């Protein structure tokens, strides 16, 4: 499978999904006009990756800001991984947040509560 690489813009994060290593990085800000439209390509890639490969998946989120419709899309991504994890796939999620950003920390904690996945928080 080819990698999924999308450059960062003012309102969308950088997407760097490495098909070889299974390391998936999402970083930046997210408040596009339509979050669902932007994240559809990400969800499609992830779906296909889960279905056609077997290596462990490491997903890193490093948001400095995301809006509420993005929040829904993040949960959609995590739900795909949750289903794969339930079927035995090795999955690890890390939520990176700036150490003085309590809201971002709380957001990570809430996703961790919502999803049954190995999920860790990491301050930077």
């Amino acid at each position, binding site marked *: 499978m080819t990698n999924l690489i999308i450059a960062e813009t003012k309102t969308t994060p950088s997407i760097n999904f490495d098909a070889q290593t299974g390391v998936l990085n999402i970083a930046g800000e997210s*408040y*596009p006009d339509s*979050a669902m439209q932007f994240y559809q390509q990400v969800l499609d890639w992830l779906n296909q990756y889960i279905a056609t490969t077997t290596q462990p998946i490491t997903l890193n989120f490093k948001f400095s800001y995301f*809006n*509420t*419709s993005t*929040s829904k899309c993040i949960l959609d991504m995590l739900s795909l991984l949750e289903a794969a994890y339930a079927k035995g796939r090795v999955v690890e999620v890390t939520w990176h947040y700036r150490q003085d950003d309590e*809201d971002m920390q709380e957001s990570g904690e809430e996703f961790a509560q*919502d999803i049954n996945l190995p999920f860790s928080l990491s301050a930077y």
Partner: protein
Amino acid sequence: MPFDLLKYYNDMNKSRILMTFKGAISQELLVELGSLVRNQLQHDDKIQRIFAVFVEMAQNILHYSAEKDLLQHIGKEVGVGVIVISEQEEMYSISSGNAVTKADAERLEAQCRHLNALTKEELKKLYQERRKQSPPEGSKGAGLGLIDMARKSDKPFEFSLQPLTSDTSFFILNVSIHKTAK
């Protein structure tokens, strides 16, 4: 004189307006206004919250205002409304105003009342529950914006609905955020 600019200037000073915009809000404009807000408030550690509330309000106007404007240069129809960020002794106020249909007005009023009656813990629960469900019909986002703003507001929403035309109302929403640390 067609417009009393001096009075406008003095009123803005007196009300300590940090940012105001009235008109068609495109995504591109929202980004520019957002940068302006961030520049003006970068000294305050509540900037992230204020910015977040601003984005939710601006995107609500962009997507849901009952008053639309066709922007020729981008070939897109966007919502029209007004956003004001002002400063008081201890608070920042982020306020939005826009036209809504009568049906939306009733729904919004009920929703604001409901959210105002909930504790922060209940709001958090509602947010997480709602996020797991499919978006409400007609929603372009996730139907989470109001709940998120209620969570970020340090006071209950101040809101009002007033008749605008025969089939629309003017919806005003105000969110207050403390200046000092929580």
